[in-house]
């Protein structure tokens, strides 16, 4: 099953002009999901305002260490939740956060779930799942492999060789 071309087109469209990138000064809530150490992390900032006697989302922004799908979903979701109460945001399922992307390939669904978890972490911190419980005893990932090689556990010494030395 190759990634559907129309799905890729929708992702590229969303990425062409990503909305709400970056930290939001004076945010009322901040939520994080995933782990920066593995390059798969979303952080969301949310600011509320009063509107018709209700506290609703005024603005939401995000930073992502994740894949392009996660960036596209976060961009769309931060637009979608404007004007909603925290309860209304929490009632949205992962699939409802970026409806214009259409159905995602199964292997990309975790990107949507990452954004949903970040929202829960911001608005309902006590219920957000921890990273540890999400990935028990997994095999080393690709990113583990090449980042661990660049961060050795001991003291690394680089010994330059003479030009004619055959190591």
């Amino acid at each position, binding site marked *: 099953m190759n990634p559907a071309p129309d799905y890729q087109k929708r992702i590229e469209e969303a990425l062409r002009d990503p909305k709400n990138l970056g930290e939001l000064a004076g945010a009322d809530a901040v939520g994080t999901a995933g782990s920066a150490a593995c390059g798969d992390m979303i952080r969301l900032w949310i600011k509320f305002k009063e509107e018709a006697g209700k506290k609703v989302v005024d603005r939401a922004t995000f930073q992502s260490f994740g894949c392009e799908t996660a960036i596209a979903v976060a961009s769309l979701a931060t637009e979608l939740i404007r004007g909603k109460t925290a309860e209304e945001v929490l009632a949205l399922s992962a699939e409802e956060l970026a409806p214009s992307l259409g159905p995602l390939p199964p292997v990309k669904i975790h990107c949507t779930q990452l954004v949903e978890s970040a929202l829960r972490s911001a608005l309902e911190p006590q219920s957000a799942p921890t*990273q540890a419980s999400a990935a028990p005893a997994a095999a080393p990932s690709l990113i583990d492999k090449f980042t661990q090689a660049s961060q050795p556990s001991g003291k690394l010494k680089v010994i330059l060789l003479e030009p004619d030395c055959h190591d």
Partner: protein
Amino acid sequence: MTHTLDPQMTMTRVLEIFPGAQRALFRRYHIGGCASCSFQPGETLAGLCARNNLDAAEVVQHIQTSHQQDEELQISPGELAALRQAGAVRLVDVRSREEFDATRIEGAVLLSQPVMQEILGRWPREELMVLYDHRGRQSLDAAAYFLGQGFRNVRCLRGGIDAWSREADAKIPRYRLELSA
């Protein structure tokens, strides 16, 4: 020796007989690249496919060509030198800070968390990016990771900076590493 890939094999066994399988899985299916899409060493390939709604027969075929895919991903020092003369190449160094400080290919950036965020968030996905390490072992994993993240023009330097020093630029010193506790 030609190996037959049985979907009932565990992922540990699959990776033993097809070392490039994890890269192939991530490039096409976004599996095994990071903590969120990881697999368990003891789960079978068939189980992994079922969990991700993938056709096991197609996945088996894809993995069986993983060695060839790895080959196609690599670029020789000579090819890289020619490309650098012809135009801009984004060079990413996936070694340690110590190695980068000791010697590097001019114009390369060291892959760090902030650089990773910059690449994933802002680098154009169609521009040529070449990754290198010391001897060409880790950069294949890194290249597969970025391909799986939607970058379409990623290569890695065959033989790493060591081959670059031998074949393209003798001014770059070769080195060996010592690790102490």
